[in-house]
């Protein structure tokens, strides 16, 4: 039996398996098939589509990017890379070219973890493969865009990023639905491997349609002295989003930092976790979330697991309720299996302090401006080591929320 048929077989056993968290989704309520889309030139899409791509961090001109991957529904519609130090392909093409890719295929995420991973293992339609060659320092980010363009379709992708020894890579992923799409589902399996001394900055911006259900399944493996920096931003309505990305710090000196900025509007349900598994001495992790509810529900989980000496990790969930019918539920977990680990957490959930608003009003801001200013400050997570271009994407998203209709 081939490696892949074993994987599919495992997946088949799990096709009904409910996920540990999140509402159970009836996969049969979405369309399996989508129409085939032809290759497109990002510069020639409609202005409205351009706008929705820009809103998720896509540089349509590609001028400030080292490469662009675009998938619409089940079709890869664009894939090009302009830097010799990095490879970017559709995952199927990569599997054909690189026999060794099976060593990474379903190694950081289990195919039988739940019905969504099972579904992706069986039905998977493309996804991207990105690999930074040893010691390559890729200055401009690569961008990958996952786009749902057809009403009611389920998009299931499998992505792999490999950062070889000593390489440095920035990836921006934007996920969105076409403005005309209301309902759909996205299942994204992502496996990231950062080798010795490598560095991966990964920024993911989501902007879905009102009735879209999203189940990302992410596993990251860090070798010795590897660094992983992730930023996840979802500030627009999504029907139901559940994820629990897990980083395994498998080499001494590995460092992971994960930041999330979440906004749940009325009708949104987000169940977002983050886990750092530190089984090797001298590893460090920091998981920081800022969540805002304007009427939606946010469950913010976090789990730090220290299984080795000299491990240091911090978990932080701060939530702001801007409407009284919203819910923010922080569930931080610290688990030390050695007496020589330093784990801490900080959680604070509440509404904006009236005295802060009044303080700003006494300086001349009206109530709305004062609220927006405080919200902006709240979301202003200072992300160390983030490339300027990525910080800009985040600032744009945050500004748009706090000074737009959001607040």
């Amino acid at each position, binding site marked *: 039996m081939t490696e892949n048929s074993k994987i599919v077989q495992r997946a088949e056993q799990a096709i009904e398996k409910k996920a540990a968290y999140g509402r159970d989704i009836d996969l049969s309520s979405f369309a399996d098939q989508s129409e085939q889309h032809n290759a497109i030139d990002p510069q020639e899409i409609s202005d409205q589509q351009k706008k929705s791509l820009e809103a998720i961090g896509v540089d349509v001109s590609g001028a400030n990017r080292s490469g662009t991957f675009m998938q619409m529904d089940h079709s890869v519609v664009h894939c090009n890379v302009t830097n010799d130090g990095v490879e970017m392909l559709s995952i199927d093409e990569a599997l054909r070219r690189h026999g060794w890719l099976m060593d990474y295929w379903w190694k950081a995420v289990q195919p039988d973890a739940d019905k969504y991973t099972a579904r992706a293992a069986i039905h998977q339609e493309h996804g991207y493969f990105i690999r930074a060659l040893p010691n390559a320092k890729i200055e401009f980010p690569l961008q990958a865009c996952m786009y749902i363009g057809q009403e009611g379709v389920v998009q299931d992708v499998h992505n792999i990023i490999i950062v070889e020894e000593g390489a440095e890579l920035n990836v921006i992923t934007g996920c969105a639905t076409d403005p005309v799409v209301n309902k759909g589902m996205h299942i994204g399996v992502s496996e990231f491997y950062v080798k010795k001394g490598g560095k991966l900055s990964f920024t993911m911006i989501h902007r879905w349609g009102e009735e879209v259900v999203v189940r990302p399944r992410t596993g990251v493996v860090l070798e010795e002295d590897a660094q992983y920096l992730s930023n996840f931003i979802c500030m627009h309505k999504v029907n139901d989003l559940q994820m629990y990305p897990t980083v395994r710090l498998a080499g001494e000196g590995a460092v992971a930092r994960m930041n999330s900025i979440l906004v749940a509007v009325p009708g949104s349900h987000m169940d977002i976790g983050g886990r750092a598994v530190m089984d090797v001495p001298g590893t460090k992790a920091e998981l920081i979330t800022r969540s805002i509810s304007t009427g939606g529900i946010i469950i913010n989980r976090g789990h730090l697991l220290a299984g080795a000496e000299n491990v240091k990790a911090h978990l932080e969930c701060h939530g702001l309720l801007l409407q009284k019918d919203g819910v923010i539920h922080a569930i931080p977990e610290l688990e030390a299996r050695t007496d020589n680990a330093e784990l801490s957490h900080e959680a604070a959930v509440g509404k904006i302090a009236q005295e802060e608003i009044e303080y700003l009003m006494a*300086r*001349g*801001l009206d109530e709305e401006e*004062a609220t927006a200013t405080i919200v902006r*400050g709240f979301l202003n997570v200072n992300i160390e080591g983030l490339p300027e271009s990525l910080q800009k994407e985040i600032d744009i998203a945050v500004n748009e929320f706090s000074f737009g209709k959001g607040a």
Partner: protein
Amino acid sequence: MLKIEGLTVAVNGKQILHNINLHIKPGEVHVLFGPNGTGKSTLISTIMGFPKYQVTKGKIYFHGEDVTNMPVYERAKRGIGVMIQRPPTLRGLSVSEMVEICSREKVDIEKLARYVNMTSFLNRAVNDGFSGGEIKRSELLQLMAQNPELLLLDEPESGVDVENIALVGQAVNYILERGTNGFERESLKVRREHRHKAGLIITHTGHILKYVPADVAHILFRGTLSCSGNPQEMLECIGHQGYEACVSCGLLEVRA
């Protein structure tokens, strides 16, 4: 500039200030003395318009306009500026962004910051981990940018060490266009003739008076303005005899 008539104020339904009458004319600086818990902060906060202070009777006029029920920011826009006793911390907002917010016109933030020795704080979050003196300097920096016509200060010297009191006084004079420091353009005489900025300063100790010349002092006692007169004279009286005796000596009747 500021005229208060028959002002009665309650907090959480409890009456704190009773029938206050006060008139501050353009160019005047008034000080407000009084024991703890007597309602001094309440008076300043009511003039600024913070919502938890309910005016149950009386009126507040600013430049002849009835501002009694006006929202805080409207009063700020009309030229009232306040330094409250314990401003909150604003995480995620830097001092320089805050100064920007305060500025009604374009200001040179660096220059103002140098004036109150705050240049190294410009990138820090507002009041985050600031010492007592640093909070006051940061407030004054904001107020210098805001440039109000009526300056309300609630115990500007509290928590400030001796060296920094002079700095605080200097910044207050800058805003009030008083004193002799920090002016480049006009002569003292011209300035005195034209100055119209007014202030109301709450002080417990009177230390600030060494640096900021004041015109009139009042004692607020148990929620009532009980006495007005020469600031130095009154400070001495309080120092020697205490508030209660000083109030009962009847120096001067309350002026409307």
